């Protein structure tokens, strides 16, 4: 029988050092973490180890031995194909199956009857397997779990799902090996500890590969006409078209699905020759179309694909020569990831074109290039005490085999996320599942999880079990409706709130086509093709991401480093800088800039900490809260990665602000906590929590809604908890998550420490400055008020429906 090394040789490859290291460590029975960039051959580093061991045995028992968890469905397809190919050539009896949300019913049944040696899956699909009664039996031969692209899961609730799965399975099979694969992170020990848990027997392997990544900004000919705001970047379409025409295959990355639809449309409009060789790829497009696009890319049949993060990871599209990033990628990690889509072969260099959608993003481009020089991606903030994910996990066990609270408790305490879970809160969670409250009340008919005679917690009610099975998974979205042609043929999904705004006869753009809404029926949107030129573009929620701390630091440096003045980006920015300096200043590292000006909308006060969206969101709330203590006032706030704006209908005085030292580090914790309670920040976080914990039922996919009278929005839950049960752990979780992510591991404290050493510069400006422009024109806003609702209403008015509508 051939060995893994011989197989490598037969392919004409030489094993790299990190691959050999992995094989060796795996053979010694170690757990581990491999840090290697995409496209470096990391799959074979782990799979080689697994196979090497499997080759020692001729006749394998029937059952899953290796689980491979990936964050993306598209990636699962790749991994399955790559591992199957290698396996078939070395041990023809062994098969690798794939199980994701896209896997058909019949395929699932087949996998159950005849489990394969390896299974490639996602965190959600793995939880579905845990909800079956006989899961300990189906995993009885399990030897290893590999978690791929761990950096993508770390710091998300899906990561918490993975932590729980590993701790749970390890409790059955203490010999289970766990391996993670991740991009290079700043805090490698933390990343490892979260995934592997508290174990000693591990190694860390680092691939010493430096990929050459070239970044080129797409610059307009004339900076005078360069917009100060915006997120589409359409004005640079001619330059993009030129790039497309010059290269064999181009991937264009957009940040939102709406942006993706618009670019697709505009490119086709600008060059009709592209018809047939242009395609679109985003998460809401039907799986058949997505798979077709992925396939056509590999077959070199496409010249250009406009896509979102759905094509970010791993997928090997060797023909791709060229990548374009539209708008800020929001982090060095994602940018490297995307750049890596081109020249996707070990050691091949990559080129990515960055298209700034507004002037400020040109500064970012420079910062990104500096970040790439350091080849390090940003650290993730792990979730702690995610009760919503835990409740969902408990329900998953309860609809299957059931669980013994006493046995499960220590297992949970072994995970990173729930290491501080105590008896009291554990009891609260159990009460929540069994009694729906903390005290038994007269007349109450609460039904969810039953306690059996031996103390096992198990769901007996079939309706409740079915509803849970259908709503498992932590990726949260609004209720999704399928889009279908009247004559049949699915196009994909769109969120319910968008369709709710449409009337029959309205035309919208989806998957690159203009579609006319005929009617909505049983969670399906029935459409026909439309020739109409005017149409609406659906927006999908949840597209907003923050700059990482890492990128903010780079950005601040970029602004003041001499050498950057010579870059083409900064040269192009000269007119913008000139305008900024005429009204205000470009803040230097020792300066903290505040601008005040008045427009028709009211009084704008703009702050520039340059610390990233997440920090600014919390900071805006905090500053608004402190100002609102001086006198009753209402703020509407906006924030981006450069700064934040407080907008009010009445001004607050500069002297009041400065004399009261509102930028102080004192009482930072208390003030932030109070501002979270007053503002509505936690409300948005609660949306996810309500869905994950099973409070909000999203309806059955592909089926008429049978959950009549059981649907309710998360907002309503937020309000009743706030009013009637503020000590509810799920409500508290929303506040704590907001606080933790606002504080960002003490980063907020550092920010205020920095400010204490800075000179505060308050500029009264006669008109909006270039730096402020993206902020004051942003319509996604938060609010905070210290006026009574009654007083505010007296100043407000209604907008009438326009005539003719």
């Amino acid at each position: 029988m051939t060995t893994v090394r011989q197989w490598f040789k037969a392919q004409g490859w030489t094993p790299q050092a990190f691959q050999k290291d992995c094989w060796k460590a795996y053979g010694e029975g170690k757990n581990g973490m491999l840090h290697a960039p995409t496209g470096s051959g990391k799959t074979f580093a782990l799979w080689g180890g697994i196979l090497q061991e499997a080759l020692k045995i001729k006749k394998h028992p029937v059952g899953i031995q290796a689980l491979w968890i990936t964050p993306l469905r598209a990636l699962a397809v790749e991994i399955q194909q790559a591992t199957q190919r290698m396996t078939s050539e070395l041990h023809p009896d062994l098969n690798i199956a794939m199980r994701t949300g896209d896997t058909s019913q019949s395929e699932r049944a087949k996998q159950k009857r005849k489990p394969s040696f390896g299974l490639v899956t996602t965190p959600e699909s793995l939880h579905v397997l845990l909800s079956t009664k006989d899961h300990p039996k189906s995993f009885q031969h399990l030897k290893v779990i590999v978690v791929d692209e761990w950096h993508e899961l770390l710091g998300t609730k899906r990561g918490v799902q993975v932590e729980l799965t590993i701790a749970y399975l390890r409790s059955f099979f203490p010999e289970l090996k766990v391996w993670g694969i991740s991009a290079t992170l700043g805090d490698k020990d933390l990343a490892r500890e979260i995934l592997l848990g508290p174990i000693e027997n591990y190694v860390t392997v680092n691939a010493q590969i430096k990929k050459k990544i070239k970044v080129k900004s797409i610059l307009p000919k004339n900076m005078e006409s360069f917009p100060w705001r915006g997120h589409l970047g359409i004005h640079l379409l001619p330059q993009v078209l030129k790039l497309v025409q010059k290269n064999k295959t181009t991937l264009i990355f957009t940040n939102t699905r709406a942006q993706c639809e618009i670019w697709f449309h505009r490119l086709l409009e600008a060059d009709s020759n592209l018809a047939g060789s242009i395609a679109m790829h985003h998460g809401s497009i039907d799986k058949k179309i997505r798979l077709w696009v992925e396939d056509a890319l590999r077959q070199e049949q496409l010249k250009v694909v406009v896509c979102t993060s759905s094509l970010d990871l791993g997928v090997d599209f060797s023909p791709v020569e060229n990548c374009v990033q539209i708008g800020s990628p929001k982090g060095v990690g994602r940018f490297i990831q995307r750049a890596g889509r081109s020249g996707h072969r070990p050691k091949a260099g990559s080129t990515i074109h960055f298209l700034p959608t507004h002037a400020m993003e040109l500064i970012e481009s420079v910062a990104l290039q500096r970040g790439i020089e350091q080849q390090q991606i940003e650290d993730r903030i792990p979730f702690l005490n995610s009760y919503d994910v835990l409740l969902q996990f408990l329900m998953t066990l309860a609809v299957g085999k059931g669980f013994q609270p006493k046995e499960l408790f220590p297992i949970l305490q072994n995970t990173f996320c729930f290491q501080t879970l105590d008896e009291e809160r554990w009891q609260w969670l159990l009460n929540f599942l069994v009694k729906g409250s903390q005290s038994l009340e007269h007349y109450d008919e609460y039904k969810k999880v039953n306690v059996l005679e031996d103390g096992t917690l198990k769901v007996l009610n079939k309706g409740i079990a079915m509803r849970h099975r259908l709503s498992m998974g932590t990726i949260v979205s609004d209720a999704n409706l399928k889009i279908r042609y009247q004559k049949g043929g699915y196009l994909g999904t769109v969120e319910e709130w968008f369709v709710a705004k449409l009337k029959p006869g309205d035309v919208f753009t989806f998957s690159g086509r203009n579609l006319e809404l005929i009617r909505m029926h049983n969670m399906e949107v029935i459409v026909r093709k439309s020739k109409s030129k005017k149409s609406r573009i659906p927006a999908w929620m949840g597209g907003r991401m923050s700059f990482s701390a890492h990128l903010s630091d780079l950005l601040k440096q970029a602004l003041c480093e001499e050498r950057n003045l010579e870059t083409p980006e900064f040269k192009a920015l000269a007119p913008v800088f000139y305008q900024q300096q005429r009204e205000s200043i470009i803040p230097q590292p020792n300066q903290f800039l505040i601008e005040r000006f008045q427009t028709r909308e009211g009084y704008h006060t703009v702050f520039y900490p340059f610390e990233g969206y997440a920090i600014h969101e919390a900071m805006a709330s905090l500053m608004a809260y402190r100002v609102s203590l001086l006198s009753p006032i209402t703020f509407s706030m906006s924030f981006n990665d450069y700064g934040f704006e407080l907008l009010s209908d009445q001004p607050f005085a500069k002297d009041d602000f400065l004399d009261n030292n509102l930028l102080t580090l004192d009482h930072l914790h208390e003030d932030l906590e109070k501002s979270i309670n007053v503002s509505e920040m936690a409300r948005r976080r609660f949306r996810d929590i309500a869905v994950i914990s099973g409070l909000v039922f999203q309806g059955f996919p592909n089926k008429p809604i049978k959950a009549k009278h059981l649907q309710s929005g998360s907002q309503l839950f937020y309000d009743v908890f706030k009013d009637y049960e503020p000590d509810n752990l799920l409500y508290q979780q929303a506040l704590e998550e907001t606080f933790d992510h606002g504080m960002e591991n003490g980063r907020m404290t550092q920010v205020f420490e920095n400010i204490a050493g800075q000179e505060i510069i308050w500029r009264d400006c006669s008109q909006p400055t270039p730096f402020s422009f993206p902020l004051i024109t942003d319509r996604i806003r938060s609010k905070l008020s210290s006026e009574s609702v009654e007083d505010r209403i007296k100043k407000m008015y209604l907008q009438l429906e326009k005539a003719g509508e």
Partner: protein
Amino acid sequence: MKRIKIKENHFVLHPSGAVFWEEQKTLLLADVHLGKVAHFRKNGIAVPRKAEGAFYQKITALLAEFPIARFLFLGDLFHSFQNNEWLLFTAWVKQQKASMVLVEGNHDVIPAAQFEEIGLQVVDQLMEEGFYFSHFPTKKETHFVFCGHVHPGVKLKGSGLQQMKMPCFFQSPQQMILPAFGAFTGLHILTPKEGDQVYVNTGKEVTEIRENKI
């Protein structure tokens, strides 16, 4: 509180969401959705039970404030099928001196006979003194309509890009839609047209809102 006049009759729009018809000593209540919390709980969704109790507290306060001779429920009195909440409601009805009428709504799946058994009169709609009472909004040439069903709310705007969504009493030339009286009920946002009048309800005050200003 806001007192308005329609067809020579006087109506008090109360911050609880109820309307008191002075001439007939009748309290109008729409969309109480009793048992909604219990229904969710019975299906494994843990809405705090306290949210349900709000009905009886609010109604006790109203009884002290107005000389109520009759309760007129404009539909969706009960959210779903019978549960223990029914027993509480029966006990409450027994203590009341006022008469009770239920105009049936889409959520009222409990058979009319059961309501009648405990002393409620059940009708599809009611016509009285030039007024028409129904659950669903409707147009009547000769009658002014009082109805519910919609759970109306409006979006308010103010300078400084301020926005707020609030429940309201929504009046058009021939119709008044009442806000939902029940807790845990949600809002449906309406856009007023020329000639509509909106009374926003903060729970403490009922305020008439200026329209347009463009």
